């Protein structure tokens, strides 16, 4: 199976609004997910523009799913849905 691609936005807006706390998400991944996902940093996904900064930080999964106001927990939950 192809790995699930998780991109954590580390653009400045996302970083300031909480992405700095997502940096160690890898440590919190449950065992069974560890080799199923690939986590990378992304440079501004372009979702924070205009008045949308209120929903930062953003995480993008498999190029299509957007997690807004992302926390370690909400991102992991999103990943779990894909594995099922």
């Amino acid at each position: 199976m192809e790995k699930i691609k998780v991109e954590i936005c580390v653009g400045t807006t996302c970083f300031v609004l909480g992405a700095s706390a997502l940096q160690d998400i890898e440590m919190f991944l449950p065992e069974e997910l560890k080799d199923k996902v690939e986590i990378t940093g992304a440079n501004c996904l372009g979702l924070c523009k205009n008045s949308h900064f209120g929903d930062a930080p953003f995480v993008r999964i498999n190029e299509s799913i957007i997690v807004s106001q992302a926390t370690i927990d909400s991102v992991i939950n999103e990943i779990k849905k894909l594995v099922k």
Partner: protein
Amino acid sequence: MNNNAERFRRELLIRVIRGYLDGTLRKDIDRIPIELRPKTMEAASRCCVYKDRAVTKYRLMAMLGCGVEEEVDEAKSLAEYLDDAEKRTELSPNILSVLDIACQACVESQYIVTNACRGCFARPCTFTCPRGAITVVGRQAKIDKSKCIDCGKCTKVCPYSAIIRVPIPCEESCPVGAIKKDETGKEKIDFEKCISCGKCLKACPFSAVLERSQIIDILKALKSGKEVVAMVAPSIIGQFPNRLEQIAEALSLVGFSEMEEVAFGAEKTTRNETAEFFEKMAAGDPLMTTSCCPAYVEAVKRHVPQLLKYVSHTKSPMGYSAEMVKKRSPEAVTVFIGPCVAKRKEAQSDANTDYVMTYEELGALFAALEINLSELHGITLLREADGYARGFATSCGVTSAILQDKAMADSTEKPNAKFINGLDKKSMKLLPLYANGKLPGNFLEVMACEGGCVGGPCSLRDVNLAALAVKKQVEETK
């Protein structure tokens, strides 16, 4: 950052800054509390959206630099406060305040029995309590509040760990007991005791402690086209996942005329502090302590005056940096940018530092202008500060800088250096002992924040990650 309160504060800051810069703030500011908490919103953070809105209004007042304790007319609009902010030329000496409507008046009782209590047969709690304050009623131990002396012995003997201590977070965090309940049970800051360290600000889970921002004053200076210099503290490295060159470029995009590393001031602090150490020792002094942490200096002045004669007279890095900038360009407006609340206090008595901005505010400023640091090439720094000077940002940084100073390296006399990494109620007790010569050491470094400045209350990043980034940079520029 990993809590809701900080996130909300930053979001508000971004709105305020953006609105101010594009000229819509006066028109929109009174709508912000409502927009963020519409009545259709399901989950209010407090009892209801209306209270949330009221709290948000006060938060915005503090962001405008207006003191919530000075409110005389509850109906005064934020737009009017903004007018006041734009008109003022002087800053208020009060920095922190407790927002009484946000303060939850945390329970006084420090020890409680949780429902993990099984009402066991052995009942060690009742035997251990020196005041006989615990009895078992039904199947539950009960603590008689009138007898309890908060010794905590019961928590240690319970086989189920059923007795816990519920602290009052702000009081717990204050190293000097400056925040206490008033008659109504709400917290109040005693400014005679307060050392402006900002620990309560970070500790309160309801974000009821507010700090007066100077952001409007700074944005006003930037808008006016004046020369405004950004003096960035050594701890800036590690606040963003970016290089210093990129931060410099971002600052120039914001409108700062130049970025000055306060690490240059730290180079001078190192030289002068070393020289002062030798002088003091030659004069027969038993001890010298650092003076670069303003919260520590305030703590000495207000709580351990007998130690004051040993605090060095050398200026802080900010003091020297501002002096250098003003010498070069006397007309320039100087803005110190750092993680520190107490620097606001220090700046008020330093004629060369005009304003203080926190990293949190800086991050919000970049976000408000949609400046993404990672996309910038960065501008070449004219001169890089010395690695050791950049190391001032972490605990022990000052000591290592002094130990490698040329004068020190050439001398056979080496200091017996000690350090206090973070002021709290316990380490405060050490200060009088140092003053009375009861503890060894003739050079004492004190940082009010654990980890050093990187652990400051207004920083953007986890203290350990930030400290690592600083250490890396120090190694690279040694």
